[in-house]
């Protein structure tokens, strides 16, 4: 067959020019020439040859496509005729065809004969159709021809349906080739020669045309760009030739029985024309066209597996479109399940009528004309033993060509399905539990149990169940008046107050602090005012700047501060931003760690660390610091000024800060990529500054200008700041830790790592090198700082309030600043119209605001004596104050301490005794007071453990709170007492609480033996963690016993933290 040769030769030429990846293309090209490829390499049908180029593939596909559709069309048209003629004509035709195919196949190596038979069965039809398309006038003759071809093709189509079985022997290589030979012989016997003769007659007619076409295709493929347009023209001219190409894309669709309606539509000539045009557009970008197709194929092949299992679907000739060598691997993989399909009779699909008919035709064909072939296959089908292991092995072999990814996907899906089937029953076995006999009720023999509600009829007096009073009802009628808050007046004599404070605050740089703040305050309010008054604020600031710099140097406070604008009297910045230190000189507290950090950075700037500044013990290692390593770990609690110190020093020493924080994507690779440049080069030029700098930047520039430093000339070096390094999100920040270590190892710039967790496992190695401890600033110092600050903001506050608030916030400066801002900028005391306390005029006639602490600690709706959720640690602190104010204990005040000591030996019984003896003794009341407290503690503790419900803890809290309050009121008779002592509560974490408690009977054993042992283990683990990579050797044992899901190494770390605090302090000093 010349056409076949044409295709193959053409194909071989294209192999050199192909661009697509070999495997994928081979897997997807369903073209006939590819099928013929084994002709070149007969021994192995699987040899993957380089695929044809996209275009040739496409065209070939299209050709096939058209053939198929035309076949179908005819099938429908001449169904009846066929049925009439079938018996007479089919036999002869089939024989002739088989003969012809045999002859052609004879030219080829033996094992492939079978295939060529099918090829031939199809090829002639292709030619036929082309013929029939081109000379439309020759309808009669061509029809005759076509009918013949049709019948032959039908015969082969019948094969095609069962072709899976046919292909199987091929795939299982050599032993099966014998069988094929057998088939060939049978074919001959059936009259293959006759058919061949008939075919030859037809074939000659077409040959010339096909030759032409093959040439054209070849040309097209070898120089696709050039020919593209030509081809289009040609196609338009020779509609006959191009017609086959037109519906290539639709081919898989038309094969499906469900799309039969579509087929009919497509078969009409007008539609063809339309689709032809559509094809032209697509040809221009063949690659784009191809990729989706490939994907579609792949997915289809995968999806086909479950589909084939259902018998209804087996009727569909799913196998047919994949009758290609390339698709074979996948196809046969599908086939492996087909024995089941073949065994079962094929029930017609209920949906599409057309498909039913076609299938019936095919079946009848297989039963009649190619009867001699098809039943053979049918018989042979069961023969391949359905031994599951063999099948599996074969499947595995066949699937070896399938990409790994697809395989994984398939297996995953399968496992998921299995899991689903196992775990979710479609029909649960137990639909419902039969309700048993109702619980037998214990009937207590009381006289009249079901008495009527006595109370519901009775009208409750007002206020018996709630706090509501008659007055409230009356008050509800009157509307509340919204009160306006006046802005805080500008204070005139701030300086006087500062002077006064100066004498009080020893060892605190009051004036320095005051001047700095005044500078900042003026600067920012000036900016605000300037932008308010005129849009060109820049110039205004510049003019003022010179004046103010003079003024500040003279320390003349004569000029009034700039008034804040009316629109935004609060300015625009947070206090934390506004008053943060911008330079090293402005750092007022926490000086030591900042100095350490400065020395570290100074070594990087090439400056000599000024040794007179550094501490004695620090100067030892400061010399070795910079040179030896490039990382520094800043460790300290939240808001102790770690980050600000870095930025202030960076400003001071002209560093460019590259910041990495937890708010960024911190994948290790990305991190390294971004910082690569910075770490590998010594200098980075900063980009030209934006015109409008932030107000803080302006201030900084101003300050620098004052100093007379010419830092602009220097090259800004960069500094890498890694924030929140102790926080790593396992799934988001893959490789973050490694990236840090890589940075530390390779960076040529200083790397500063900020962390708050001293026991962070993955930073242990870094922490061994350079570490600077930060601490929360001293309450006394910071309160002075805050006092000056609040004075600057025109709202002087009492020192005690500030100290209390600072301690109440657990020494968190930033939070205190925030709350201070909230209080100050909302008008201080004035915001509340009903300021209960009388305004106290302090020194120099300045009103000292007093309600700061009350505002943040006292409940506003309901007045409590004690803050609502009772904090027993705080209660213990304040207890002495309460006891002192107690009225009951007053007469024997001297003996109070001794009683306190006695409280441990109390027992409930004793209390009762005491109480019954004499109610009034101080001892008895104290004892009962403590009893109430202990009950309250128990309540909260037991609830803290359980906490299954949201409401129950609330009730417990309420109970405990009211218990404590009542106890204080009634047992002690205390009326006025201060509850203002706040301390950083000692966080005690009991490791044993986390573990399964049933192993320990008594709590004393737990506290005395178990807990210390666990802590020792944790501590040793901690120490080892720094040395070895795997840090959780013993933790595993403990974790197995843990109850909660959230139990992690953090708990262990906390456990060894108990003595850590003091260690840190020792290390720092």
């Amino acid at each position, binding site marked *: 067959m010349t056409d076949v040769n044409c295709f193959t030769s053409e194909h071989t030429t294209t192999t050199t020019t192909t661009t697509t990846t070999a495997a994928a293309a081979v897997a997807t090209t369903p073209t006939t020439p590819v099928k013929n490829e084994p002709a070149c390499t007969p021994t192995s049908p699987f040899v993957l040859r380089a695929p044809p180029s996209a275009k040739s593939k496409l065209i070939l596909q299209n050709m096939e496509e058209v053939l198929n559709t035309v076949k179908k069309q005819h099938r429908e048209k001449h169904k009846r005729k066929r049925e009439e003629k079938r018996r007479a004509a089919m036999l002869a035709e089939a024989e002739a065809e088989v003969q012809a195919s045999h002859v052609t196949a004879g030219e080829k190596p033996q094992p492939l004969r079978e295939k060529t038979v099918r090829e031939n069965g199809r090829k002639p039809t292709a030619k036929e159709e082309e013929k029939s398309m081109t000379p439309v006038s020759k309808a009669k003759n061509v029809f005759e021809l076509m009918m013949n071809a049709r019948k032959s093709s039908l015969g082969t189509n019948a094969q095609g349906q069962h072709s899976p079985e046919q292909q199987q022997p091929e795939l299982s290589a050599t032993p099966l080739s014998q069988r094929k030979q057998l088939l060939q012989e049978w074919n001959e016997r059936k009259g293959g020669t006759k058919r061949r003769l008939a075919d030859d007659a037809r074939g000659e007619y077409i040959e010339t045309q096909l030759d032409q076409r093959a040439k054209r295709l070849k040309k097209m493929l070898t120089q696709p760009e050039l020919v593209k347009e030509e081809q289009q023209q040609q196609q338009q001219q020779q509609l006959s030739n191009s017609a086959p190409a037109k519906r290539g894309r639709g081919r898989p669709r038309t094969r499906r029985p469900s799309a039969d309606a579509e087929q009919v539509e497509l078969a009409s000539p007008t539609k063809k024309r339309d689709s032809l045009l559509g094809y032209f557009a697509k040809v221009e970008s063949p690659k784009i066209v191809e990729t989706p197709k490939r994907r579609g194929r792949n997915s289809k092949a995968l999806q086909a597996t479950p589909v084939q299992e259902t018998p209804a679907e087996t009727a569909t000739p799913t196998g047919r479109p994949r009758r290609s060598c390339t698709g074979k691997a996948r196809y046969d993989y599908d086939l492996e399940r087909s024995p089941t399909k073949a065994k079962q009779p094929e029930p017609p699909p209920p949906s599409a009528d057309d498909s039913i008919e076609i299938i019936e035709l095919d079946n009848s064909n297989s039963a009649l004309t190619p009867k001699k072939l098809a039943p053979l296959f049918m018989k042979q089908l069961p023969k391949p033993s359905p031994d599951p292991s063999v099948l599996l092995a074969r499947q595995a072999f066949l699937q070896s060509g399938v990409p790994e990814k697809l395989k994984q996907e398939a297996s995953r899906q399968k496992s998921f399905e299995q899991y689903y089937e196992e775990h979710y029953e479609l029909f649960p076995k137990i639909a419902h539990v039969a309700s048993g006999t109702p619980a037998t009720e214990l009937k207590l023999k009381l006289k009249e149990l079901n008495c009527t509600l006595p109370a519901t009829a009775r009208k409750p007096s007002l206020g018996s169940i*709630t706090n509501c009073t008659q007055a409230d009802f009356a008050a509800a009628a009157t509307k509340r008046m919204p009160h306006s808050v006046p802005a805080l007046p500008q204070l005139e004599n701030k300086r006087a107050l500062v002077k006064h404070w100066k004498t009080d605050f020893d060892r605190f740089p009051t004036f320095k602090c005051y001047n700095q703040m005044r500078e900042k305050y003026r600067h920012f309010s000036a900016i605000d005012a300037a932008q308010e008054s005129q849009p060109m604020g820049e110039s205004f600031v510049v003019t003022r700047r010179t004046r103010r710099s003079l003024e500040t140097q003279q320390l003349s406070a004569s000029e009034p501060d700039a008034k804040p604008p009316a629109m935004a009297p609060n300015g625009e910045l947070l206090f934390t931003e506004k008053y943060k230190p911008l330079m090293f000189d402005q750092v007022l507290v926490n000086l030591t760690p900042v100095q350490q950090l400065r020395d570290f950075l100074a070594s990087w700037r090439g400056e000599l660390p000024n040794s007179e500044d550094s501490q004695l013990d620090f100067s030892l290692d400061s010399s070795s610091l910079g040179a030896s390593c490039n990382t520094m770990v800043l460790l300290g609690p939240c808001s102790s000024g770690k980050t600000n110190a870095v930025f202030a020093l960076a400003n001071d020493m002209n560093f460019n800060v590259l910041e990495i924080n937890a708010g960024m994507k911190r994948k290790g690779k990305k991190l390294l990529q971004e910082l690569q440049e910075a770490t590998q080069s010594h200098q980075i030029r900063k980009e030209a500054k934006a015109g409008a700098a932030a107000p803080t930047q302006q201030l900084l520039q101003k300050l620098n200008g004052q100093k007379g430093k010419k830092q602009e000339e220097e090259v800004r070096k960069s500094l890498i700041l890694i924030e929140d390094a102790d926080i790593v999100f396992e799934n988001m920040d893959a490789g973050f830790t490694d990236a840090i270590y890589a940075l530390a190892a390779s960076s040529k710039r200083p790397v500063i790592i900020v962390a708050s967790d001293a026991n962070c496992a993955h930073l242990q190695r870094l922490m061994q090198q350079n570490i600077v401890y930060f601490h929360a600033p001293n309450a006394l110092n910071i309160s002075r700082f805050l006092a000056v600050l609040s004075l600057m903001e025109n709202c002087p506050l009492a020192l005690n309030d500030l100290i209390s608030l600072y301690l109440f916030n657990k020494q968190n400066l930033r939070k205190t600043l925030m709350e201070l801002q*909230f209080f100050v900028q909302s008008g201080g005391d004035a915001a509340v119209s009903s300021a209960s306390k009388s305004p106290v005029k302090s020194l120099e006639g300045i009103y000292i605001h007093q309600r700061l602490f009350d505002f943040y600690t006292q409940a506003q709706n309901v007045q409590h004596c004690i803050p609502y959720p009772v904090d027993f640690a705080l209660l213990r602190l304040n207890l002495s104050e309460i006891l002192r104010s107690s009225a009951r204990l007053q007469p024997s005040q001297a003996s109070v301490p001794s009683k306190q000591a006695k409280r441990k030996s109390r027992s409930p019984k004793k209390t009762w005794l005491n109480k019954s003896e004499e109610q009034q003794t101080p001892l008895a009341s104290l004892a009962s007071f403590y009893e109430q407290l202990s009950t309250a503690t128990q309540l909260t503790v037991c609830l803290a453990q359980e906490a299954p419900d949201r409401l129950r803890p609330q009730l417990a809290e309420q109970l405990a709170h009211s218990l404590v309050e009542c106890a204080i009121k009634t047992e002690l008779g205390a009326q006025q007492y201060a509850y203002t002592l706040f301390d950083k509560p000692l966080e005690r974490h009991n490791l044993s609480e986390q573990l399964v408690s049933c192993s320990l009977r008594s709590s004393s054993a737990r506290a005395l033996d178990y807990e210390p042992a666990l802590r020792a283990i944790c501590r040793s683990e901690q120490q080892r963690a720094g040395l070895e990579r795997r840090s959780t050797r013993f933790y595993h044992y403990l974790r197995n016993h843990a109850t909660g899901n959230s139990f992690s190494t953090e708990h262990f770390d906390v456990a060894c933290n108990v003595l850590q605090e003091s260690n840190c302090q020792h290390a720092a000093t």
Partner: protein
Amino acid sequence: MPEETEVAIVDKRNNLPWIEKYRPVKFDEIVGNEDTVARLSVFSTQGNSPNIIIAGPPGVGKTTTIQCLARILLGDSYKDAVLELNASNERGIDVVRNKIKMFAQQKVTLPKGRHKIVILDEADSMTEGAQQSLRRTMEIYSNTTRFALACNTSEKIIEPIQSRCAMLRFTKLSDAQVLAKLIEVCQLEKLKYDEDGLEAIVFTAQGDMRQGLNNLQSTAQGFGDITGANVFKVCDEPHPMLLQDMLQHCAANDIHKAYKILAKLWRLGYAPEDIIGNIFRVCKRLNVDEHKKLNFIREIGITHMKIVDGCNSLLQLTSLLARLCIIAEAN
């Protein structure tokens, strides 16, 4: 035409739950926590509000306050300058790193002293990771964006976030505050009410305005009039008057009568948790000697503990009555 639209609006409003219908839009409509609310109203006019966390029990107006602040502060540009995320939105690390950060970076022209606001409602339901990744973002963009968080328990907000915010604690509303609002709503809805009924609603609300308004609406739509009996029909709780009687019997050392009431309640099918809760709340307002009341409360607490432990039988409640009687006898 305008009349029709007005009617339509009214109709629409009628279909709303009262809790939405009467949600305050101005600061002076917000009930309770006057001090904090007044200060926030100052910020709403003067701008530059710091980051805030409002913590408090449900139904005290946390979300309402924040929304008021944002609406008044930003006015027309509310839509552009406010990013509101609550527990129903996804708020993982990704969202914080992308969505919130993008919002913080984007430029919105606002008047001086005004900032964009990110409202994180129910912030205690955010994962710790999400909160961690928020911490530096809050600081870096503080010049343009402020955060307002609302949560039930401040303990679930991690320390670094708390440290960047001013913590404002809202507490339960007092009974008088709830009552005032209820009367206002009743008058607006033209309901027939009596003091008894309103007090019953206040009792069931327990300082939760949302609960109170819902109960009020349920009663009004179910029975029309707001009377004590109707309210307790809707909000099925152990009747406080019964419990009050029971405690009075105990205080009078009459266990038989007290037990009769308890058995009655038990038969009605109330859960012991409900009974003990209401006993406590009635006991707080019981008109007995202070010392006795204190001991009563302690015993109630102990019984509550046992019930939470799982011993929620009638026996435990009966033993409570017995112990209360002992206390009464001892005095």
